[in-house]
């Protein structure tokens, strides 16, 4: 078991990171929407940065990650010519940009990784963060899950013959610490892997959907263990997390 000691949630809709977080890094203006979502979820989980480095891991999960920025970057190249690529935008074509930005903003120097495993990448990130803590690779790990809505992502889903269900975008962040940590909101464990039945339908939930549901469940007060599952009809991947009420000491 691993304890969840903080959680943050960003529901779909207009977001204004600066309004909520006046001291947000100046570099915010350079980052893209999926980074904004991830940073805001992290801020809502952790609060204002402590101003010192902490060896906390960051595990970012996203289905589409920087796809929108990739499309815009490349379309600009096609218009302006390959030699005139924008060096300020290029870093945000990297799918781990949000993981890097969260680490920079909050001074988190533990393992830093991004998972783009498919539409189950959200719970995949939570499970991987849990494993990092359980194996001692990090004293704590922040799982940050985000996907951004855009014309480009809608076009991609449509072109892939997929129909998005659930939130069109959103983000969730969960801080995981060893079992017994103070202030635990709940405990998380890993359900034995069960291969998913191959999907035949076109419906997909974006990566944050299951993690957002998990955060809502924590906030509403868990009375008994619940299993959260997410799967990717394209990749066959699946992630299952068992969430239990925090132990009373």
């Amino acid at each position, binding site marked *: 078991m691993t304890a969840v000691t903080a959680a943050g949630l960003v529901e779909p809709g207009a977001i204004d990171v600066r309004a909520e977080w006046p001291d947000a890094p100046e570099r915010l203006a350079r980052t893209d929407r999926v980074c904004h979502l991830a940073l805001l979820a992290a801020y809502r989980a952790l609060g204002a940065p402590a101003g010192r480095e902490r060896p906390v*891991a960051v595990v970012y999960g996203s289905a589409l990650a920087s796809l929108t920025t990739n*499309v815009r970057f490349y379309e600009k190249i096609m218009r302006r010519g390959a030699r005139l690529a924008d060096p300020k935008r290029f870093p945000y074509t990297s799918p*781990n940009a949000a993981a890097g*930005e969260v680490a920079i903003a909050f001074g988190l120097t533990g393992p830093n990784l991004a998972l783009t495993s498919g539409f189950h990448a959200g719970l995949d990130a939570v499970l991987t963060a849990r494993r990092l803590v359980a194996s001692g*690779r990090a004293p704590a790990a922040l799982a940050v899950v985000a996907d951004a809505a855009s014309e480009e992502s809608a076009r991609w889903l449509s072109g892939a013959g997929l129909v998005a269900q659930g939130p069109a975008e959103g983000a969730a962040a969960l801080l995981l610490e060893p079992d017994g940590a103070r202030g635990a909101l709940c405990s998380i464990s*890993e359900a034995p892997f*069960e291969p998913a039945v191959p999907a035949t339908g076109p419906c997909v939930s974006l990566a944050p959907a299951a993690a957002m549901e998990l955060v809502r469940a924590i906030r509403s007060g868990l009375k008994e263990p619940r299993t959260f599952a997410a799967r990717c009809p*394209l990749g066959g991947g699946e992630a299952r997390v068992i969430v239990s009420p925090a132990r009373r000491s």
Partner: protein
Amino acid sequence: MTPGPAGLNNAGPLEPVGIEGVSAISAAGVGAAAILEEVLAKRSAIRESPELAALGFKSALVARVEAFAEERWLSGEELAAPRPHRMVLCAARMAIEDAGLGSARGANSALVVGTSSGAMTELVGHLRDPEHAGSREASYFAPMAFAARALGIAGPVQTVSSACASGAIALCLAADLVACGSVDLAIAVGYDAWCDFVHAGFDALGALSPRIPTPFRADRSGLVLGEGAAAVVLRRSAGRRGRLLGAGMSGDARHITAPDREGAGVSRAIRAALADSGRTARDIDLVSAHGTGTVHNDAMESRGIKDALGERAREIPIHTIKPIVGHTLGAAGLIEAVVTLAAMSRRVGPPTLTSDAVDPDCDLDYTTGEPIELPRARTALKLSSGFGGSNAALVLEAP
């Protein structure tokens, strides 16, 4: 990794994991032994591309993988798949065969794939031609999904997209799945197919060298992009090709593209890997550096190695193979790890193809001359770093 309790939800350090099979595909050849020959002979596979020169890039150099016998590894239908998909599947099947296994099918097998760009080559094709069939395949996870289906992997599947550290991190996560008992077998793959928009981005950042890179030297002027794939098959075993004794990861938390100038993130990753493996700096016989040839990477990496290994850093031969195979991004960590294992099994320290222009900021032994004999070499350190400040260190043991 010191012995610890196995089990899905158990806590504690993990055991070493055996490397049963390996594969590598690069511009310098297919197979770890073939690539090692080119490294030992200091023959670079980097070439000038007339196509890139015509586009006016500052650097038109690239290390592309030439055609190889894909049909030996792929069916007719699979041969029609996008290039990144084929690279992942070929590398995985080569490693499975090298492990002496007929298949990796089943729910007790996992596939962990590391990549920087995924199938963004397909996205580019789709944008150029909306009728391009590849839209559904233009994602970070599509090549992993394609390979998992073809291999019959019914266990966990993951895609790690941590830029140039992706391959090394994929190996670490795959090993953890085996070590904690989630699966009996895991395949870790690192790959990246060269893509013109990635080339354009690195060109815009001024990170590309107009000549073959000269890592760790005063005249270094950047990296040259390559492409390729590598895979390892992992089990709880003695390891026919070696063992992963431990791994460490860290984040710089400094800058989105530039590495921490002091190398603190690299140092933390090395220290974590040594602690995880139960080894000390004295046990390390060889270092395979990230060694991109950029001004800041090589200086910070040298500082990080010195900080973590202390005086021992000056005694250990260090090398980088990027002047031979190019910077293969998400494949780099794994290609370089399997070439390191091949070098250790031959008890040789590979040389670094570079210049003679000594840089006081890079004052370690980068093996700039001929290959060196290492008759007692057993343990190597493999380092990787990437955009976003992600670092990984692997402690590898020779078979």
